[in-house]
């Protein structure tokens, strides 16, 4: 059981590497990989696909800055965040806006695993933790 899972993960990793072009996920490559899986039906296909999806999603998240905001946000600000993150991570990072009223005010930017917290709710939470 454990080795089947391991094999699925190994295959997913190999397929994931094939999906990258210049370090970024390429849509045509992903389509090619899916076609290959469809055609060859490897053992434990579902597990392979789940692992593959997780790896691709994590990689896509690394190239996208999700900007959560409570108030209005301008296109200029989104563009400057994308530019700043591109410089910081030395890779092409795009930005998308997502409204989140729970923040009260300010922004929260998520790029991959990293979260940049500059919201009122975040500050209140850290204040509560400190008290």
């Amino acid at each position: 059981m454990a080795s089947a899972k391991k094999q699925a993960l190994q295959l997913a990793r190999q397929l994931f590497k094939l999906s990258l072009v210049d370090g970024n996920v390429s849509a045509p490559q992903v389509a090619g990989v899916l076609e290959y899986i469809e055609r060859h039906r490897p053992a434990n296909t579902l597990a392979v696909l789940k692992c593959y999806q997780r790896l691709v999603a994590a990689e896509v998240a690394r190239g996208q800055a999700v900007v959560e905001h409570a108030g209005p946000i301008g296109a200029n600000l989104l563009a400057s965040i994308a530019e700043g993150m591109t410089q910081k991570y030395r890779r092409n990072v795009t930005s998308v806006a997502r409204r989140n009223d729970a923040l009260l005010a300010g922004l929260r930017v998520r790029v991959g695993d990293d979260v940049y917290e500059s919201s009122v709710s975040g500050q209140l939470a850290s204040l509560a933790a400190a008290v």
Partner: protein
Amino acid sequence: MSTVLEQIEQQIAKLSSKAIKKNTGIIRTVADGVAKIEGLSEVMYNEMVQFSGGAIGIALNLEEDEVGCVVLGDISQLKEGDEVQTTGRLLSVPVGRALLGRAVDALGNPVDGKGPIAATESYPVEKIAPGIIVRKSVSQPLFTGIMAIDSMIPIGRGQRELIIGDRGTGKTTIAIDTIINQAKINKVGLASGDKNFRPVYSIYVAVGQKNSNIVRTMAALEAAGALEYSIIVAAPAADNPANQYLAPYSGAAMGEWFMENGMDALIVYDDLSKHAVAYRQISLILKRPSGREAYPGDVFYLHSRLLERSARLDGKGSLTALPIIETLAGDVSAYIPTNVISITDGQIFLETDLFNQGIRPAVSVGLSVSRVGSAAQIKATKQVGGKLKGELAQFRELAAFAQFGSDLDAKTKAQLERGARIVELFKQPAFSPVPIELQVAILFGMQKGVFDPIDVRKVVVAAQSMKDFFTTRKDPLLTEIRTKAALDKDLEAKLQTAMDEWKASFAG
């Protein structure tokens, strides 16, 4: 003035608008006290992570696309998909004098119901052991108050002496006796006003024990007035394995504070067999490859990095360790016992047979050793007990041969008689350590043959009578032995006179 205020306001504005960076992950699975987390790409080994419910964890397994964390605290609140974030800190526990007299858990939280602990400092639980340059050789004695140990297997400050034996052979009792003796010495030393006196503070780490046993130990320490100089770190059997794994390291951190601040401390790990079992449980859940007896490959490192933290530091204090190992059917060649024997500076081996024969403490003289040797003994003990170990070993050998026949020469008979009396003399009830000066007096009597005419069955009574005689009537002499720490001709003469006096009173 207004410009100054503006400057401060600007500074506050700068700070409050600064974005805080966090590295996060998502819980994928939680089982048996271990969480598998996706993300946390910047987490470091042994780093503390924060779960969304307030629980904390330690990152132990850093894999390609997931992190294995042991969860400390309430695991029932955690669920798949919860966010976890790194803290950039190592797990720390409160340290300092404020912990004395208290019982805490593996994270340093009080568990004795005596309210919060006002500790101002904290030390990381995991710390690299002191290197060779800062260490000093072990040369100052740490008296256990147990005659058989102080005279034949002496322990020094900064030493690691293993207490090993089957269950129910008195391992914990030896450790508790030692803690009680430190408290007694501390009280006398601090009351004397001697500026050179260095008290020894004790830390008792209970791993995988029943809560009732821990309470009993606490009660014994309290009854003996030793709790005020002691800290109890409790990770009972009902605690999760992560806490049982951490407790010895937390205790070591608390002990290190005393050592680093120029004080002496004693730490008892009761016991490391259960600690290894807790670590094996965590490792198996983390799917680490298992080796001999299903222990992970780094089980030696688990104990070596812990025990190496005990040392005597140059210009600072010391941390003496008394790890305890429980054997099965006296098998000292099992995996964990051999590991810990090889790490420590000697072992006190307790035999079930001796215990059942009524020889308590059941110290096996042949298998017990202190690699520090007489360097950790005062001169007076060396003078009166230097040959004891050899005499006792010879007695055991002769006693085995004597079983085959009754025709023995006078010299052999005398050796057997003397040996039997030494064995009786070393019998000592639990929780009643004997001060070193009294030990010297009794061993002086043994050396001078004071017990030879007394029937073997009455030696214990005679020894008790001698103890009472010296403590009630010869206190100045005992004080002189304690302060001089060596027997000169004058002192020997005084001791001889006192012995004659006692003999007359005991015979009468």
